[in-house]
């Protein structure tokens, strides 16, 4: 069957089951948008900026576990999507970004809106393609989705020159692809898993260090079974929140720089660390040479380069978290007397002592300024029964959300961890809302971050994506101000944001709902009202501008030396 490249493109998306894409047109992709316009299976959400499209695709992917798709034009369209590509690469988010390109015969001629899309994106994608012949388009799109979603997930870019979209070619969409240089390992090595079982049986003070990989591999059930079976407490990275129920007695919440006291003391003093789909980031390890000094380390990861990159590993297991945990659980069950609950008791008691000694708390005097932690806590209390999806921007508010918003299910937490991209939150929330029209989607934003992609409020309103954005407005780049307090003698160089814009008026300008709370007593009211609205809402909450985020391990510090104020 002969189809134009643009028609092939749309057919391929249908075969991949893509329901929604995010994008913004331009000269070389008009043909594709034109074909999209004439069908109903794939919905196109027009964004106001390509960075918005990229982050929406990420939010969609994180919330659904399926690949997010963006379509942008050549030149500036492509360069605007570079930040989301790098963000997705750092956080292993499966997105497929299609860029337009000048016609093949003009490539390399500095043609109008030409950029070296594959050259620019090579270091920020898992893989990328330039399609030179319309007859290859189907095969390439199949490979793009396959690469983005298998192994360690990541972003893939497909660059489609204008003539390839216009020309007719043979449509072939293979059912499967095989790429000789790409064979991700899913099954863990049995011998290594057996070593892990023995180490677990022997351990007196084991701890699970769970990362984003547990979410990508949908391993929450296996993880729960593993923890309960072995009575091993669970630390989570920022990216893993929701992989294990945060309200479970074995959960120690988030670990690392702003993690809970108990979580960091536990890794530091453990004798066995079981890393599960985590990559030993420096925000977690602190000073690498003193990370879990007494412990043996088991590391389950699908990407061999993650293993032994930063930290010594005694029992490496290359494989998929879900597959490996299944095997591990089966072997543990086959040796039920390997360890005893008694054996774990002193360790669990110690951990409970740490938990009790320094829980994550805050003090909110009724007539003082609003504490940001209090706001998060209230939002959590009002929404916890509604199973919300929560996105964040980057900064203090992100850390407070991670600490105080308890998540019990995976794919509910959308945050930018590796790159720490301000402006991620609101578009990511829109991506999730586009995937789940009936779900409650919240965005906890900073006043600084929100301004980096606030144009997408228009996308929210026009496309009826009723996200609830809570801006913890401290009139500062708060996280920067905190570091200036701690390490630059309180000189607030370029961190004060002043009092503009008026976010309530801004909401109204977009024809969204704008609400504001300036006193503690007003917080509950605005939350309730926001939740009632069937439109996008911006809630501007004036919080204590000088509140710092604790606990905190200073960069390069050691995990048992937590700085605390409360």
């Amino acid at each position, binding site marked *: 069957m002969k189809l134009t490249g643009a028609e092939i493109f749309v057919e391929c998306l249908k075969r991949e089951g893509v329901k929604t894409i995010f994008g913004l047109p331009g000269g070389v992709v008009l043909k594709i948008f034109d074909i999209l316009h004439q069908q109903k299976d794939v919905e196109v959400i027009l964004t106001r900026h390509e960075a918005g499209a990229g982050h929406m695709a990420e939010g969609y992917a994180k919330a659904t576990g399926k690949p997010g798709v963006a379509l942008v034009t050549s030149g500036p369209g492509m360069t605007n999507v570079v930040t989301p590509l790098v963000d997705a690469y750092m956080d292993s988010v499966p997105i497929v970004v299609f860029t337009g390109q000048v016609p093949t015969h003009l490539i390399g001629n500095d043609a109008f809106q030409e950029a070296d899309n594959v050259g620019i994106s090579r*270091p920020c994608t898992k893989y990328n393609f330039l399609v030179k012949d319309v007859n290859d388009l189907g095969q390439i799109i199949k490979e793009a989705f396959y690469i983005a979603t298998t192994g360690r997930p990541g972003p893939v870019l497909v660059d489609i020159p204008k003539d390839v979209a216009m020309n007719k070619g043979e449509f072939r969409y293979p059912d499967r692809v095989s790429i*000789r*240089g790409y064979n991700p390992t899913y099954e863990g090595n049995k011998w290594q898993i057996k070593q892990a079982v023995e180490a677990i049986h022997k351990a007196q003070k084991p701890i699970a260090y769970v990362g984003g990989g547990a979410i990508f591999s949908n391993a929450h059930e296996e993880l729960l079974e593993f923890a309960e079976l072995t009575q091993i407490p669970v630390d989570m990275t920022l990216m893993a929140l929701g992989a294990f129920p945060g309200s479970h007695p074995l959960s120690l919440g988030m670990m690392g720089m702003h993690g809970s006291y108990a979580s960091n003391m536990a890794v530091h003093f453990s004798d066995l660390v079981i890393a599960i789909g985590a990559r030993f980031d420096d925000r977690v390890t602190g000073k690498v040479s003193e990370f879990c000094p007494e412990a043996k380390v088991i590391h389950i990861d699908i990407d*061999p380069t993650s293993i032994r990159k930063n930290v010594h590993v005694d029992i490496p297991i290359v494989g998929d978290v879900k597959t490996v945990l299944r095997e591990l659980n089966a072997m543990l069950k086959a040796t039920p007397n390997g360890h005893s609950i008694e054996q774990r008791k002193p360790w669990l008691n110690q951990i409970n002592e740490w938990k009790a000694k320094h829980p994550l708390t805050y003090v909110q005097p009724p007539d003082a300024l609003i504490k940001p932690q209090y706001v998060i806590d209230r939002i959590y209390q009002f929404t916890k029964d509604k199973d919300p999806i929560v996105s964040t921007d980057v900064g203090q508010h992100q850390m407070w959300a991670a600490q105080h918003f308890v998540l019990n299910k995976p794919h509910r937490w959308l945050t930018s961890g590796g790159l720490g991209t301000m402006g991620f939150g609101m578009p990511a929330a829109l991506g999730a809302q586009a995937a789940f029209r009936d779900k409650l989607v919240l965005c906890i934003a900073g006043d600084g971050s929100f301004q980096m992609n606030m144009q997408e409020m228009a996308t929210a309103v026009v496309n009826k994506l009723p996200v609830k954005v809570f801006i913890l407005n401290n009139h500062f780049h708060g996280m920067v101000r905190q570091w200036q307090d701690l390490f630059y003698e309180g000189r607030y160089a370029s961190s004060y944001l002043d009092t503009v814009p008026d976010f309530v008026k801004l909401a109204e300008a977009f024809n969204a709902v704008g609400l504001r709370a300036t006193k503690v007593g007003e917080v509950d009211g605005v939350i309730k009202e926001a939740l009632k609205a069937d439109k996008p809402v911006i809630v501007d909450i004036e919080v204590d501008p000088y509140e710092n985020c604790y606990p905190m391990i200073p960069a390069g510090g050691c995990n048992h030396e937590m700085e605390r104020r409360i």
Partner: protein
Amino acid sequence: MEHIISVLVENKFGVLSRVANLFSGRGYNIEALSVAPTLDPSMSMMTIVTQGDDRIIEQIVKQLNKVIDVIKVVDLNETEFVQRETALIKIHTRQEDRAEALRIADIFRGKVVDSTPTTYTIEITGDVRKVEACINLLQPLGIKELVRTGRVAIAREPVRQAAAQPKRILKEEK
């Protein structure tokens, strides 16, 4: 320590840049690099000479394996191998030096591949020490230009895919 790594790759556009990006982006060093198609023209063989301690070499091998266009990686230092390099050396020759130049070329089994009234171009092939020794001896005569291919190397016996995982594990797995 110096390592020579053979990397079998897809013979397609952009692959060299993917591999080069990997080294530059992660701060690894490429001391020499050569690339050419294999018997099967859909693939190319790269020979990369690099430096690093065990931990770095382990990461380099893993990172190379991770590149989707890379089909096979062999760290030749883990086996016995032979290596060769070719240099073309153009020397400025005064009348009285021409005989000496030929003599040196001869000692190293080099060939004069071009000659003009004032120059000789000598081709020398061998392991790196031999090539360098020859260059050192010719230097006093006045080397005008020098080009080297970078090394190519081949294992003496067939080897299986190198350490995608570290050596220790490969041993344990057997």
